[in-house]
């Protein structure tokens, strides 16, 4: 099978970290459906050695929304991509969610893809959801793993509750009689007929691709054993005016200061801080540790700190070396935001608080005594060094 992966580029034009993870996931999914034979070489390498062997087995194609010259071909090849498509249009620049989905719909045919994968980012989830609606296909968001079974269905593990709960699921991409969303956005659909059994834009089953987004925390970015031989082709999608109606213009404004998402150390404060005035000590500690301040949901819903400092399912995901969680009970919605922290140290008065079951180390005590004493010790230490 061929898996088509949406590849996002970062501000520097390199493959975004989330997309490297999606490419890893795509490669494993493609290999899961390859014919099993002892000693089979990696498909990409075999394809490179013998072009006549390039069948629809075990291949990863990449869709990159950039001019051909800006496609990071070497990086894609290192992840096993054999075909990269540089999607360009005179009508489209930057991020245009519906147009991106139309382009992927076109590329499904061009690449003979049976599955389309994207990282579960804002762009990935949004574009794949548009694609699902265009095709009238099912979409499984936030997958941790996927494999194609012999009967053509997909066995998935996906995240619920932002990863606090796992769902084993089966995706039948072309179930008989599935409802579809037939309308094309922009067309006058008010009032319209109820869901019809088949969309005019989608072929009759079989033929609907599996549409998956990848839970970024669940998959490590791993290059292929051997780089693939890669071909880069230009792809110009056919776009209608309504596909271009909603488009992103990027404001010049960039978030300043230490980014919570990428901070090496995060000092967290929760209900135990007691009020808005209690965060000064935690901010000072974050400063001394070269890190950022993060807070729990109760802190932002009380209005003690701004929402952009919230760590958790509905806030920011962090992945620091050290998360020092002070006065935070450890609700699952909070812990979902720090699953990727290397080390968690909790400061809490309650030895039975849920956070103790997620932490590597704990200090049992009131943060309003522990943190000032820690600050004193760290100040003395830096004064000596």
């Amino acid at each position, binding site marked *: 099978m061929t898996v088509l992966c949406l590849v996002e580029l970062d*501000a520097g034009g390199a493959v975004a970290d989330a997309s490297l993870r999606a490419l890893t996931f795509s490669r494993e999914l493609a290999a899961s459906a390859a014919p099993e034979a002892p000693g089979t070489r990696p498909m990409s390498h075999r394809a490179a050695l013998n072009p006549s062997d390039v069948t629809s087995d075990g291949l990863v194609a990449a869709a990159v929304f950039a001019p051909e010259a800006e496609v990071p071909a070497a990086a894609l090849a290192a992840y096993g991509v054999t075909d990269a498509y540089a999607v360009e249009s005179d009508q489209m620049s930057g*991020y245009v*969610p519906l147009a991106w989905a139309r382009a992927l719909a076109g590329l499904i045919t061009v690449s003979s893809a049976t599955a389309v994968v994207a990282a*579960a*980012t804002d762009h990935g*989830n*949004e574009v794949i*959801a*548009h694609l*699902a*609606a265009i095709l009238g*296909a*099912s979409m*499984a968001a*936030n997958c941790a793993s996927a494999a194609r079974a012999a009967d053509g269905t997909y066995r998935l593990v996906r995240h*619920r*509750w932002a990863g*606090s*709960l*796992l*769902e084993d699921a*089966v995706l039948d991409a*072309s*179930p008989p009689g*599935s*409802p*579809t*969303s*037939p309308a*094309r956005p922009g067309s006058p659909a*008010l*009032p*319209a007929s109820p869901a019809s059994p088949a969309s005019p834009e989608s072929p009759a089953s079989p033929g*609907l691709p599996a549409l998956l*987004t990848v839970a970024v925390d669940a998959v490590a970015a791993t290059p292929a054993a051997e780089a693939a031989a890669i071909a880069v082709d230009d792809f110009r999608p056919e776009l209608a005016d309504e596909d271009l*109606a*909603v*488009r*992103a*213009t*990027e404001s010049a404004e960039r978030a300043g200061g230490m980014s919570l998402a990428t901070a090496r150390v995060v000092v967290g404060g929760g209900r135990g801080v007691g009020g808005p005035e209690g965060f000064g000590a935690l901010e000072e500690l974050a400063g001394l540790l070269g890190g950022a301040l993060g807070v729990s949901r109760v802190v932002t819903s009380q209005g003690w700190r701004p*929402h952009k400092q*919230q760590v958790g399912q*509905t806030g920011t995901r962090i992945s620091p*070396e*050290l998360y020092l969680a002070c006065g935070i009970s*450890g*609700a*699952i919605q909070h*812990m979902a935001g720090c699953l990727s922290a290397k080390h968690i*140290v909790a400061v809490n008065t309650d030895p039975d608080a*849920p956070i*103790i079951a997620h*932490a590597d180390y704990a*200090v*049992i*005590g009131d943060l309003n*005594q522990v943190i000032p004493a820690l600050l004193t010790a*760290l100040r003395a*230490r830096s004064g000596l060094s």
Partner: protein
Amino acid sequence: MDILVCVKRVPMVGGRVVVTADGQDVDTRMSGFTVSPHEECAVEEAVRITERLGGTVTALTLGPAAAADQLRDMLALGAGHGVLLETDGREWGPIATAAAIADAVRRRAAGPAGGYDLLLFGNEAADTGDYQVPVRVAHALGLPCVTGIKNLEITGPGDGAGAASRARASREYLGGEEVFELTLPAVISVREGINLPRYPSLPGRLRAKRAVIERFEPEYHAEGLRKELLRVPAGQTKRAEILGTGADAVPALVRLLEELGVLS
């Protein structure tokens, strides 16, 4: 400005999530229910818009009869009307959910009240996290759509913005900010942080208690993505090594910070 806000009844989970013995649901015998946090903010946003521009806010949910409780919570926050798309308690997939919501919107558009100017959603449901119902509703209704919004400005015809109402919606992405312009009617999903929802007022609660909730019974459809089993990930729980108690633990804490290499 008539606004529809779609919300979902989800379990109120705290320190840990427990799965029922058959692995099909979250065990809610010891917990209450709430709506997803993004959706509470969507209701607050709708109420603020209509406070400024006039109009109505309708809260809609698809779920069991008991989901009327969550609609009343939203009515207490300032929504004026509640619509319950009542199910038999089965978990509905995103395709069938979106189709039922789109039908409800069309039904209202065909009646004397007319269509909605704005359909607000939370970015994703707290429990299933499918990330697609708003987009599917937008396609079914032929409306423009954007998701994950953290800032929303609505300009009505009375604001000198021309004949059509418009939305300016933005979100953070990869350290920058993306801005989208949409002509209403439109579908927009928002994230927590777009506002700080108010607490329900006492008059609001009383009004919510008395309000009549409109009920419909949409038809269930199975779809291609099927849940088999829910399970709590292994290895998530551990027992922390206790460094000490109170300020006496500080020397051990400093040694640990040194070992972890976070002290310069």
